[in-house]
């Protein structure tokens, strides 16, 4: 018998009493979603900017100097680093800034949903030194239940909820922003 058959038959032989699967749950809208998202993100160490979307390039130039490498996957933001010609994900090492669209945000947790389709290289939001995520103020859901319903069970490409800059507290519980991933996270709500 294979390991699989042995494991499955061991479980089957126990003939455990059935227990009901609860219905999936949902909760009423919690109100001020924009405020909730901002608060959650700031609590996690992200910088949040509200902006109408016009002149975003100019706005970002206040935060990042023009001579650093910047990749933009967001319409209306001009970068100076391009994915054409990148073959291996490791070639992204050294990229300073990436401006990436997030599909939507979750007010309750500050989590922003990034899809592989929008990233090209899944490593992008992790390997870059400073991450800028742009999300529409209209695209905010209340909680994680609604978030998973919105994505749906058919999603098969890589997807990640990002809820802050990478961080660690493994040295005496001192919080250090910038562990392995980005040293900072800026979220533009437009």
């Amino acid at each position, binding site marked *: 018998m294979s390991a699989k058959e042995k*494991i499955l038959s061991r479980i089957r032989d126990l003939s455990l009493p059935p227990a009901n699967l609860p219905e999936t*749950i949902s909760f009423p809208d919690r109100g001020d979603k924009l405020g909730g998202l901002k608060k959650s993100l700031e609590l996690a160490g992200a910088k949040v900017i509200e902006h109408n979307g016009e002149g975003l390039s100019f706005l970002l130039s206040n935060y990042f100097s023009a001579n650093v490498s910047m990749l933009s996957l967001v319409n209306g933001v001009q970068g100076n680093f391009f994915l054409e010609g990148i073959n291996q994900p490791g070639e992204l090492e050294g990229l300073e800034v990436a401006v990436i669209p997030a599909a939507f945000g979750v007010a309750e947790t500050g989590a922003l949903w990034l899809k592989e389709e929008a990233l090209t290289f899944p*490593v992008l939001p992790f390997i870059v030194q400073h991450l800028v995520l742009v999300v529409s103020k209209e695209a905010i859901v209340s909680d994680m239940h609604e978030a998973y319903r919105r994505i749906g069970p058919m999603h098969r490409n890589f997807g990640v*909820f990002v*809820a802050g800059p990478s961080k660690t507290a493994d040295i005496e519980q001192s919080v250090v922003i910038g562990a392995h991933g980005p040293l900072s996270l800026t979220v533009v709500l437009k």
Partner: protein
Amino acid sequence: MGHPEEASRFLANADRAKWHDQTLWMVRQKRDVATGFVSEWEELRSVASAIKEHTLSRLDDYLTEFESNALLNGIKVHWAENADEHNRIVLGILSRRKIDTLVKSKSILTEECHLNDFLQENGIEVIDTDLGERIVQFAKQPPSHIVMPAIHMKRGEISELFHEKLGTEKGNEDATYLTRAARKHLRDKFLKAKAALTGVNFAIAETGGFVVCTNEGNADMGVHLADVHIASMGIEKLIPRWEDLGVFTRILARSGTGQAITNYTSHFHKPRKGQELHLILVDNGRTKQLGREHFRSSLKCIRCGACMNTCPVYRRSGGFSYKSTVPGPIGSILSPGIDLKKYSSLPFASSLCGSCSDVCPVKINIHDQLYRWRQEIMQHNNGQVQGKIFSRMAGFLLASPFWYRVLSSMVTGISKVFPGALKNSFLVWGNQREFPPVPRQTFRDWFDQNAGKG
């Protein structure tokens, strides 16, 4: 050695023990703040518990469903009955591709399987990439906490270790400086690694995919750069539906660290173009635990660590005193199922205060199970002889009013003359405890003097 002896070694350094206690309590308080924001917290716990209960009740069906969906997605699925099979599967995957270096993110299962030792004996370099795990790997120690692996170490020791291993400035103990040094060192490893191994927080039967949660981003740095991704999971990590993730992502980090959610919650369903994705389903004693009616629900555990942070015994005895992969209250009900003799002292390493059960996000009745294990251990004759003698004596004295009165007046009398008489090496229970002052008079004597006066 049992837990009491190991704990007294930890307590020998009183300052550190106090720091450890207070730091973990601070994490517990953060958990309270985070859960306090969620008005439906208790409902979430009940639903999470019921989902796990249901999944465990028909785990064979869900494993089958999960495997067939994972295969459809292009994941190569492996099954391992025990630690040895798991380790050989990992080695086999690496050997076929002639890979000699593996970057790993946190996986308690691979600690349980002693994968690192096995791979290193077979010529594979293993690099733990979670900062805390890298620290303990440098120190040649196991993690002392499942969420905060290096919580037992002070920054001075980490600074010394990094000076030796990474060439950081001697005496520089700044946490940011040390973290940046590790970041640079590990980036280099990520960029060179051909294979990355991760654990699994949740696997979804409905979609055939799995979720990995980190704050550092180390799991993703590893797998998105490597040609081969290996994910190891215990068979109890399954949940039935995609939407169930809504429940579990809300409770995991809030319980563990007091964050609303981990900074990265990554969802994997298929290999990246040109990549191989392997998933290993491991039993290693889990089906045995599933068969134990009173201990079955310990398999609901999502490894948040909340029970450790709150436990008055864990906080004051340190993770190493348990000598088991998973320490603390949950470890004390899981480990005896793996080796009853070796871990027979763990269910006694508890005050049975029940705080672990109160904070558990999947409502495992941990303290009831600790009490149940104690009974089984005493029946198996694995209890401490001293404890047994005292229990017998106590049973006799408490059942006999005459001898009870004789003894209580003796204790009162002796303590008046020799105040330290009750603290002696024979009575290990008193080693780290201060006795309250013994009353000058027994209650019985007081009653006899005062009865009828009021």
